[in-house]
């Protein structure tokens, strides 16, 4: 585990020390490029298991829905620091914004592969259909990616010694953060709204008129989980300390968000009279149980105990479960819950999985490069692996 996490860092760092995991990363990257070439020359059918019965697969369920959702830490934390004025969280704002920005970049690259004619992506700017949730999604992706880039830009400006623009953005931070929170609220919820239109297709364990709110609240919970997880990965990769004094109270926020979300989910299922479909242990019922027990109930229970929250290992385990539950939920909404109505089974192809894994690897490498180059963490750019090994 340790080596997995240090590897992308080593690769992108100034001090390059290739190892087993570097090779895995390079292979993943090359496989990603190869699949992209096949996809653009032979069409979507050549690389994916998508079909007329099942037009949206892993790239929408994981890359888009989870990429956006797990970037939710950025708007949550900027709101906490700049709107609720809890300045002590400032040290973890920059890495969180970076994670958010990379999440959105991940989504855009995935869309460029998933769209049938990605070179027409600009059509969403020119041709408007305000009745379409996808139109809202498209604009939110564009605008919030811009906001995240601007929020992160002072870090880059500082690096190049451009103090004037950095100062200018700093003065605009309040309206910028408010804009970011509004766009995120719209965007996170709109991903749930995408499925409002399929009441006859999505399984009653997941369909609800409240889907937009489910998606919004669960993204806040998982976004916080992601902040904790990202801090932990940074600790492992760059030998940093874990900011327990900040992460422990964040975990409390996560419990509240997940708790509200869990209750809303149960209310939705009650309203659909769908409890029976859980306990008949149908395919959907089992998938729901797994998602809900592992990804909602367990982290809420564990993180309710102060003793566990203040223990770094348990804290990270709780955050990991929340993120896992989030990913399972998005895959269940987009895949499991849609299968019965489609009359077919969908399993992503090896090439689809390769693309998703390749994108995660690229994201981690860019993160590692950024924290080694810029002052993302309060102590400045992190040191290369060799410097560290020498130091220790």
């Amino acid at each position, binding site marked *: 585990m340790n080596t997995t996490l240090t590897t992308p860092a080593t690769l992108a760092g100034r001090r390059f020390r290739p190892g087993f995991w570097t090779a895995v990363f390079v292979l993943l990257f090359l496989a990603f490029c190869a699949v992209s070439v096949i996809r653009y020359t032979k069409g979507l*059918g050549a690389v994916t298991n998508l079909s007329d019965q099942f*037009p949206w697969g892993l790239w929408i369920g994981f890359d888009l829905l989870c990429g956006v959702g797990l970037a939710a830490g950025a708007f949550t934390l900027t709101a906490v620091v700049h709107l609720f004025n809890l300045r002590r969280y400032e040290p973890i704002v920059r890495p969180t914004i970076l994670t958010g920005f990379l999440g959105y970049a991940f989504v855009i690259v995935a869309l460029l592969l998933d769209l049938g004619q990605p070179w027409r992506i600009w059509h969403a700017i020119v041709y408007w*259909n305000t*009745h379409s949730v996808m139109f809202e*999604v498209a604009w939110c992706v564009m605008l919030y990616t811009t906001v995240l880039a601007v929020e992160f830009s002072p870090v880059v400006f500082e690096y190049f010694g451009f103090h004037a623009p950095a100062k200018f953005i700093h003065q605009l931070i309040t309206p910028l953060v408010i804009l970011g929170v509004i766009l995120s609220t719209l965007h996170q919820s709109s991903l749930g709204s995408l499925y409002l239109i399929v009441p006859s297709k999505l399984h009653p364990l997941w369909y609800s008129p409240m889907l937009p709110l489910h998606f919004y609240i669960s993204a806040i919970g998982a976004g916080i989980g992601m902040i904790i997880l990202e801090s932990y990965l940074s600790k492992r990769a760059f030998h940093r300390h874990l900011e327990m004094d900040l992460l422990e109270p964040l975990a409390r926020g996560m419990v509240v968000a997940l708790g509200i979300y869990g209750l809303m989910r149960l209310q939705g299922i009650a309203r659909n009279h769908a409890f029976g479909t859980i306990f008949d242990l149908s395919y959907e019922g089992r998938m729901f149980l797994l998602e809900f027990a592992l990804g909602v109930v367990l982290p809420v229970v564990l993180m309710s105990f102060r003793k566990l929250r203040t223990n770094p290992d348990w804290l990270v385990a709780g955050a990991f479960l929340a993120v896992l539950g989030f990913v399972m939920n998005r895959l269940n909404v987009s895949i499991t819950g849609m299968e019965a109505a489609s009359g077919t089974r969908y399993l992503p192809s090896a090439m689809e999985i390769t693309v998703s894994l390749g994108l995660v690897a690229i994201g981690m490498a860019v993160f590692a490069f950024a924290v080694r180059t810029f002052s993302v963490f309060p102590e400045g750019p992190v040191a290369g692996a060799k410097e560290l090994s020498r130091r220790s």
Partner: protein
Amino acid sequence: MGMGLLFDATRCIGCGACSSACKEQNKLPGKVEEVLTAYTWTTVQEREGLNVRRLCMHCEVPTCASVCPVGALKKTPEGPVVYDAERCMGCRYCMMACPFEIPKYQWDRPVPVVGKCIMCAGRLKEGKPTACAEACPAEATIFGKKEDLIWEARTRIRQKPGAYVDHIYGLTEAGGTSVLMISNVPFDKLGLKSNLPGEPPAMKTWQVLSNIPDFVAVWAVFLYGVHWITARREEVAKATANGNGNGRDGQGHGREDRS
């Protein structure tokens, strides 16, 4: 109300002339498939001893048109739901959303577009019926004004009691469609969706989308308000802390400021 098609499953002989005519009219490559594909816009399926056509139902409030982010799908006043391949960027939300599962995709092409029946919109403009209706030797598919077709369907159901299921499929499904079907076998047994709401699914999203402008305004004011209050609190706290040396004066100053 525009034009429409009426399909009578009791009359269809399953010759497939409609599917062939459709292929020819729309220059679609390949043979007629058993199911709809991007290259087979209508097909005849055998169910319960009957022959039943599959084709776009041309909804009055089409779900596909409502979900398309670039407005590539549109309902025309004449009746057809048409598709502008030049606009489509291939998000495939129409395929996801369509309650009748009609739009299909060219998975085999590097530059793919959606394929679906467009009710021969071009022919309609010239005052001609659809190619399928013109080709049908048994008058199982007839073309006409939708109100006339409803009248015709009701007449057939009324004149031969028991010979038809007392329902015109498409009259209320998903808010009503321009294509109507009648049959002597329940429609769900013919592979047609029978669990569709009478309200167009598009309304479900519009309820959310139409509230966005109001929501944005309120949310912006609320968020700025939170910032305003917390920032002010900090100022007061600072002033209080600075004034500590002067004892109560500092606190008093803070309170005055607040009022």
